[in-house]
């Protein structure tokens, strides 16, 4: 395929779509399926066939649209009109929707999400731009929306250093949570000496309560592949690996299909878009180890070893897979790349904050009215995310904390809800942006119990290589358990804090270094809850069952 063919294909595909009076996009992601999206699609199929509308109405199964608590979702796209989004669609209302849009029936407004709903209007979708709007299994859908245009532009208009410059200039930073400037990393790998180099997409999304990478891989797989190919060109790699979390079989299947489709069209493989650039992508399936989100552990896993990290430096950019320079970026980071290259770094850098450009995807979960995936410009405040997009706390209960960054992050209290979200802002509050988990908790969540929960997670996921993490998490967990059971002694809090600091400073890799974060941040903002458990044998949130024991038994 040549660049011209790509353009022709996009035009033809758009023209083919334009003949439909209405396109009904049924969200076919797991939450909507669990809510009955299958039956909705079946009802629509039957109606469309029964009424002989097949030439006028197109039915598409898409990836995730985002407002997951409101599924099943159906989006109606009509030429010349704004998309209409319908929520909690049943087979019956699906028919009403079809009636309205295809047969000029009465409006189905009762089920329509208001176009003014902040959940729709306040987002800025870059990485998620296509999610919920295309059939992830059709490469043509992606191409029709400008897909692979960034790769074509890079290959034929820019040299590798210019691509790196664009990425650097865009201000994009690692979306896996580290926040390392992406362009800088690309340049390091580009300049690293080595005949063979690798590009790795980290899709081992292990933070509980985070699913943006899954959504992106499932709903718009080509975007990730295109980002990787651009990276391959920029750093001089011919081989890419995408490491998909084992819990995400659908993502792996879609990526596999997408790679084959792209290879068939000459968008991956040898002589991509008839240039001299060759790029292959292989999938590696994770096997259930959170630590493999850490880049050196991930590389060990790709090489078929136990997923244990090794001390850095040397960094993967110098010495990565099989000793070769290796670029590792998160899936979401790659998801931003095609648009930066095709629309220009200035366009991207125009959004966000001076230090953190662009957008970030968050998985809004927990005790919040609207749960789901949102992509917002950096710098939006926590309050806006919780109350405007999230619609506030259900049942009129009080907001208590938002947990960001998963087991490596922390809890942020109500007093800091007006903090703008970016890497540094959250770090100052003792949390991290992380991969984008965003869990809202109301007054019924016990902060000590939450800290204990995350510590249990970390001790379970510790690889066991270094002592502070392997043995320290066990002891921290024991102390936290004692506190939540009402069996803690007065010196336990001091012991816990000392352990937290030691494990944070001494552990070999990011997992151990960040494991104390949930404890340290809750101690910082909710120390009174710890003290109530220890001294008054009382759980303020009413979660812990405290059974104080006499004497020294533990």
């Amino acid at each position, binding site marked *: 395929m040549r660049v011209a063919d790509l353009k022709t294909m996009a035009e033809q595909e758009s023209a083919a779509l334009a003949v439909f009076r209405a396109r009904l996009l049924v969200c076919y992601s*797991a*939450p909507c*399926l*669990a*809510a009955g999206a299958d039956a909705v699609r079946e009802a629509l199929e039957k109606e469309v066939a029964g009424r002989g509308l097949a030439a006028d109405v197109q039915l598409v199964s898409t990836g995730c649209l985002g407002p*997951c*608590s409101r599924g099943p979702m159906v989006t109606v796209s009509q030429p010349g009109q704004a998309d209409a989004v319908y929520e909690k669609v049943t087979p019956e209302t699906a028919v009403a929707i079809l009636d309205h849009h295809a047969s000029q029936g009465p409006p189905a407004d009762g089920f329509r999400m208001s176009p003014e709903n902040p959940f729709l209007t306040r987002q800025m979708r870059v990485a998620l731009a296509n999610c919920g709007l295309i059939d992830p299994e059709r490469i043509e859908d992606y191409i029709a929306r400008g897909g692979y245009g960034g790769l074509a532009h890079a290959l034929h208009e820019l040299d590798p250093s210019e691509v790196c410059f664009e990425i650097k200039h865009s201000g994009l930073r690692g979306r896996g949570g580290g926040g390392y400037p992406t362009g800088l990393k690309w340049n390091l790998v580009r300049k690293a000496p080595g005949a063979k180099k690798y590009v790795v997409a980290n899709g081992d*999304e*292990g*933070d*509980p*309560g*985070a*699913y943006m990478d*899954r959504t992106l891989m499932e709903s718009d797989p080509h975007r990730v592949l295109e980002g990787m190919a651009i990276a391959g060109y920029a750093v001089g790699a011919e081989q890419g690996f995408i490491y998909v*979390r*084992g*819990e*995400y079989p659908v993502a792996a299947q879609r990526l596999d299909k997408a790679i084959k489709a792209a290879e068939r069209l000459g968008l991956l493989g040898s002589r991509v878009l008839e240039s001299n650039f060759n790029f292959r992508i292989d999938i*590696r*399936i*994770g*096997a*259930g*180890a*959170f630590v493999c989100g850490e880049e050196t552990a991930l590389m060990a*896993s*790709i*090489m*078929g*070893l*136990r*997923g*244990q990290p090794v001390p850095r430096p040397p960094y993967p950019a110098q010495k990565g897979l099989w000793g070769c320079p290796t670029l590792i970026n998160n899936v979401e980071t790659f998801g931003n790349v095609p648009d930066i290259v095709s629309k220009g770094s200035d366009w991207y850098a125009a959004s966000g904050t001076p230090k953190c450009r662009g957008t970030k995807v968050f*998985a809004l*979960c*927990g*005790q919040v009215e609207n*749960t*789901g995936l949102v992509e917002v410009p950096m710098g939006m405040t926590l309050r806006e995310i919780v109350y405007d997009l999230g619609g506030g706390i259900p049942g009129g209960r009080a907001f208590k904390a938002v*947990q960001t960054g*998963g087991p490596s992050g922390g809890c942020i209290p109500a007093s800091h809800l007006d903090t703008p979200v970016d890497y540094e802002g959250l770090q100052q509050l003792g949390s991290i942006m992380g991969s984008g*988990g965003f*869990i809202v*908790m109301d007054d019924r*969540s016990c902060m000590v119990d*939450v800290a204990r*929960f*995350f510590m249990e*997670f970390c001790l*379970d*996921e510790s*690889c066991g290589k270094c002592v502070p993490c392997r043995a320290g998490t066990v002891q921290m967990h024991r102390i936290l358990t004692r506190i939540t059971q009402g069996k803690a002694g007065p010196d336990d809090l001091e012991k816990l804090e000392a352990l937290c600091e030691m494990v944070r400073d001494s552990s070999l890799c990011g997992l151990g270094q960040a494991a104390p974060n949930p404890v340290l941040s809750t101690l910082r903002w909710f120390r009174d809850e710890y003290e109530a458990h220890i001294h008054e044998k009382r759980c303020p949130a009413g979660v812990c069952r405290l059974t104080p024991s006499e004497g020294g038994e533990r």
Partner: protein
Amino acid sequence: MSIETPTPESHPGGDPRYKLVDRALKRFQYRQDALIEVLHLSQETFGYLGEALLTYVARALKLPPSHVYGVATFYHFFTLKPKGEHNCIVCMGTACYVKRAGEVVEALEGEFGVKAGHTTEDGKLSVSIARCLGNCSLAPLLVVDGEVLGHETPESTLAKVRAAVGKEQAE
């Protein structure tokens, strides 16, 4: 147990499932770094990674058995014991935990007399805990025999798992 290097023709006990393992081995050109991929496909084929299978893979890839065992036990996805006829995976991701998935686990453990991560003595039911299945808007979430169930309570879970296990007994 034979000690010759296995060839595609020398399947232990003539078990035809080894053909599928061989196919995976060939696809990865017997590369040692494909161990995890081969283990994935082996487990898919056999349901679990038994000793004979691990030995077979180790020999085919010319890897030390202890290394293969070390890798197979490092990753939670791999299981060295057969699973129950039915399985119930309870998601214990943060969103599910905050929405009290712990109570669901307790209810299951109490009702079926099995600790999470284990299989009942009669081999009927395996209960396991997942570290976030990435469907947080459905919290608390379970997967019973492959079916995703959202917004669960201890009662609704027990009803569903009882039905899944009971169905078998009624037949």
